[in-house]
């Protein structure tokens, strides 16, 4: 039983991890906690749905199409909105992303109504696979695998490519990066695009499990955000670890203590952890000098 619980915790955790990674990437490069992340993912998932249902495209084409859309949505958020802020302080940027979130939520609600749709993936939700005495549905297995592949790709991107180097340089010190000839504005915009893509993958993997409606990403987004904060917003490895930890803890709590309060235990853990470690479990503490 315990193994089964941990396994389903890992499945939930891999969705949280994707959202958390997306949020932490943008936070590291621009100090913006992007609250619109979930709604951007929801919107991209709807794009995939439209391509599948209305235009009858094959799945892989719809998948790639929605990711491309997500990338440009991320670029637009940065170039079209965040860059244009007159006074880009923390509060204003946070409110801008909240505004963008509400805007996308309203737009999706207007376009597709509040009714629940079904996004069909070519992976079965009912057939199961057995791993070491535990069973897992093919869809859940695919979710975990896709999440792991995405993490690996991100790792390779940041570690071994020129773009990754530029992203890391921008995150560490924007002014110094600019002096060394890195087009930091473009790099930050690309970071927004990449995290939007990561979020969209999470949305598409999640849509068959829940259902496709404008509310679908609100809870995963909050959980992902909480996971990112739990792990420490400025360490990518910490963020992933925090997400899996949160998923597993949440599932164990739901089974052994109470299913009713399962949805808030994440936030109670966060508040307690933040009280003792204000920068998260694995985050490096940032000491402000006077």
């Amino acid at each position: 039983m315990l193994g089964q619980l941990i396994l389903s915790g890992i499945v939930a955790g891999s969705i949280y991890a994707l959202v958390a990674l997306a949020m932490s990437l943008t936070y590291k490069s621009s100090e913006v906690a992007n609250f619109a992340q979930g709604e951007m993912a929801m919107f991209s998932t709807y794009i995939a749905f439209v391509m599948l249902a209305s235009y009858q495209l094959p799945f892989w084409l719809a998948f790639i199409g929605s990711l491309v859309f997500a990338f440009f949505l991320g670029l637009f958020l940065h170039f079209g909105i965040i860059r244009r802020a007159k006074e880009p302080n923390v509060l204003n940027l946070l409110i801008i992303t909240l505004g963008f979130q509400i805007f996308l939520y309203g737009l999706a609600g207007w376009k597709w109504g509040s009714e629940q749709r079904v996004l069909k993936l070519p992976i079965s939700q009912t057939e199961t696979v057995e791993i070491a005495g535990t069973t897992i549905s093919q869809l859940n297995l695919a979710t975990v695998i896709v999440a792991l592949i995405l993490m690996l790709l991100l790792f390779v991107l940041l570690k071994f490519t020129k773009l990754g180097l530029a992203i890391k340089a921008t995150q560490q010190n924007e002014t110094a990066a600019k002096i060394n000839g890195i087009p930091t504005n473009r790099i930050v915009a690309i970071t927004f695009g990449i995290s939007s893509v990561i979020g969209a993958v999470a949305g598409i993997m999640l849509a068959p499990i829940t259902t496709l409606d404008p509310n679908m990403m609100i809870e995963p987004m909050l959980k992902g955000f909480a996971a990112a904060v739990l792990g420490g917003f400025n360490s990518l490895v910490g963020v992933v670890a925090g997400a899996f930890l949160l998923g597993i803890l949440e599932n164990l709590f739901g089974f052994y203590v109470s299913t009713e309060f399962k949805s808030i235990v994440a936030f109670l853990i966060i508040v307690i952890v933040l009280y003792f470690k204000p920068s998260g479990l694995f985050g490096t503490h940032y000491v402000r000098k006077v």
Partner: protein
Amino acid sequence: MDKRTSYFEDITLFKDRSVLIWSLLALSLLIGLPFMLAGYQVFVVNLILVNIIIVLGLNVLVGNTGQISLGHGGFVAIGAYMTVILDDRWLPFLPALIIAGFIAAIFGFILGIPSLKLEGPYLAVATLGFGLAITVIIGRVQFFGGHMGIMPPELTVFGTKLSSNTDFYFLCLIIALVMGIFARLLIKSRIGRAFSAIRDSDIAASALGVHVTWYKTLSFAFSAFYAGVGGGIWAYALGFISPGNFTPVLSILLLSMVVVGGLGTITGSVLGATVITLLNLQGEKIQELPLIGPFFEWISAQFMSISGLPNINFMFMGLTVMIIILFEPLGLFGLWIRIKIYFKTWPF
């Protein structure tokens, strides 16, 4: 501008005589307002007044002290439920309202303690979690009526029954005025200056002898008190409350009222609460508007969906918030100041 010789006018309630006269004029207009409006419009004005009360407190926290809260819906819920339950079982309305406000303030104090070390997104997520937790707990406990929600009893103040929207309007108006004046006095007092010092730099403030721990938690408690009182009145204005009323969307709405209105000013709170509440209520019923209504209906039929049209209010709200931040970071208050300066120095 003219040279300052004393700072006395910074701490008086009314800056000079003209402000006093304008305030009295506005007050008499407010007293006459319910007799000029239809029943539903008075109800809308009541909701605006409730939001003004809540936003006044939130603005002290966000605008004056510089702390982010995404969990104010939780305090509103505590105030609403506590007022209704106390009024229903043990106390008359006004004491119940005040005690509910203090209970919310205690929760604000508790939430303020972990927030001492947090800032930016960390604080946002901690307060957000608090707001969510309150809603879930209220929804699951039978004492609070569970998911079904509860109805407030009949409203009696000092032995008189307030049954119509107009009666209720005057109650809201008096409470809003009292709380507005109190907030203004507080901002202008030693405490308010301590809040501003913390916002500008908490390290500098503590170096100057401001007790940062105490004032930060006090600011949380103060804004929670306002949210609690506002929530208590809100319950009676709606006539029915359930956990669905206090979602994170409410907290986001309240925060956007503060920002749209203008950070750290009383006028800003009033403007922001009014504009966002009207936008929110009118957006839901956009079809009923003349000219714009049929136009949007046509667009919906052509490109969007008719059933989703009420969601358009979220779109408008999001757009308003983004446009305000992008073009006028001081909010509607900044716009108001600009207009004032324009007319003061008019030909130039």
